[in-house]
Structures are given as structure tokens and as C-alpha cells.
């Protein structure tokens, strides 16, 4: 891993409205814009249900965990820029901007193919110890 490296993207080809029901339960969030197309339309927000914001961030986390096997996310700092709708094709990505003290700093983002940037931010990942350095997972 080097500064400037592009992290392998994590893609969801079509955001599933059924997954939003799982998130509604987990978040204790009955907001109808995640569950009912008519409710979305009534608010003038389109005709597709809207993915929960933390679910969008979870895609970025999945990308980071796949890019840094054995590592651990130390910190995240993100800004929510836009919504993700059911059926959207989204891709999480990132680039390495610094490596220091056993940690990699990365610019990260989530983009929706139809509307571009959804989330942008920065992550710090504690890198996995090299073989022989110990067996503790960070």
C-alpha cells in the first residue's frame, strides 16, 4: 500500500428496497420515505424509496474493510451530500493520502451512477501487523 493508491471499489449494482426494511428495524426508524413510495412522492422527493444514510456509509466501510484485510477502521469523518434511491447503482471508493505510524489515511466517497457524489470524507485505518509482528487483530 502506497500513497496515491486507489482502493478497490465496492459496488451495489441496484440498491434493494427490501434491505431498507432491515435498516428501519435496526435503526428503530419508521420514517415512511424509506418504506413507502407514496410517502416519498407526497413529500415531492421522487417516486422511489430513499436509502437510510447509515446504510450508504456502510458501503464505504465495506470498501475499506475489503481494501485493508486484517486492519481496523480507526476513524471516519464524512459528509452526506445526496440521497440514494432504490435501484440506484452505487460505488464506494477511496485513495490513500498518507501512511504513517502504522495507519493509512484515505479520502473516501460513495457515488451514485446517475447523480454522482453521495458521501465524501476521510478515513484512518490501522494497518494489519506484518506476519511475525504478533497475532493480535487491530
Amino acid at each position, binding site marked *: 500500500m502506497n500513497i496515491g493508491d486507489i482502493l478497490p471499489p465496492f459496488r451495489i449494482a441496484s440498491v434493494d428496497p427490501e434491505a431498507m426494511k*432491515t*435498516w428501519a*428495524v435496526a435503526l*428503530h426508524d419508521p420514517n415512511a420515505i424509506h418504506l413507502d413510495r407514496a410517502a416519498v412522492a407526497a413529500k415531492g422527493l421522487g417516486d422511489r424509496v430513499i436509502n437510510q444514510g*447509515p*446504510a450508504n456509509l456502510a*458501503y464505504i*466501510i465495506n470498501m475499506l474493510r475489503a481494501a485493508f484485510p486484517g486492519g481496523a*477502521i480507526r*476513524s471516519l469523518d464524512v459528509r452526506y451530500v445526496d440521497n440514494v434511491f432504490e435501484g440506484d447503482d452505487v460505488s464506494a471508493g477511496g485513495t490513500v493520502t498518507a501512511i504513517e505510524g502504522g495507519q493509512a489515511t484515505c479520502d473516501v466517497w460513495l457515488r451514485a451512477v446517475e447523480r454522482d457524489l453521495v458521501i465524501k470524507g476521510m478515513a484512518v485505518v490501522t494497518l494489519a501487523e506484518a506476519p511475525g509482528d504478533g497475532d493480535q487483530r487491530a
Partner: protein
Amino acid sequence: MSDTSAFPPPPDVAGASLSGTEPYVITAEENAALCRSTGVEPDADGQAHPIYYYIATQVGMGVTVAGMCEICEFDIEEGPMMGQSSVTFERPLMTGQPYVVTGQILDLTRKPSRAFGVMDLLNYELRLSLPDGTPVVASRNSWALPRRELAKQETAK
């Protein structure tokens, strides 16, 4: 609209407690369902998906999201919007582990908004710790609370 001097100040809510009353436990079943909903399998070693930093703090805090909006004199039906979120992990989140949730509202600031005329920016922080006080997660979130009614009242003057 260049400033918010024409509007009444937002309620003084800084310091309002968001601490929970019962520890939050991430169940293995819910973690598995949540992981699969995002396209990955759950960890075999009991680590929960890191996004539980947000879920556990939101669900485990002492008020509901609607209740937090009420503290800010904001009707949740007006549609609060997530703005920013930051988190620092001191250790991984684990399924089956009770986490104590503590936190408070940091501030509520009224601001001009191109989209809504005026909005309030809510900043709050929430933490997860082990029952013995060992820190696990520190998070800070910002939400935009659109104040359409205030903007309409000002426009009508």
C-alpha cells in the same frame, strides 16, 4: 437571505443529555442480517459491522430521534437531514457485548439556507463504553433541521 437576525433565536438546548438508560447489545442475528443487506457476510469472530457505531448510539441513547427533535422544538415530520458524522473507534464493536451509551447535544445554531430559507444545525455527540467505563466509540453527528415555517413567516411580512 444573508443572515438570521430577522428570526427568533433557536432554543437553548446545548448540554441536553442524550445518555441512555439501558445498555445496548448488538445481537448476532441482527448483525448478520444487516451485513447481508449491505452485500457482505458477517465476521466469524463476533465482530459487529462498524456501522453499529451509528446504530447503537442512535437506538441506545436516552431519547428517540423524534424526542431529540422535540428538544429542539422541531417536528420530525419536517424531515431532519443527516449532514455530517465522525467517529473514532478505540476497539472493535462485538456482538453480544453490552454497551453503555452516553452523550449530549453540543449546540443548535440557526443559519440561512439557500434551500429552505432558514435552518437549524444540530450538533450532538454520543459515546459507547463497556460497563466498566472502558471507552469504545466516540461519535459526533450534525443534522440540518429545515425551518420552512420560519422562512414562510418572514416572507409573508
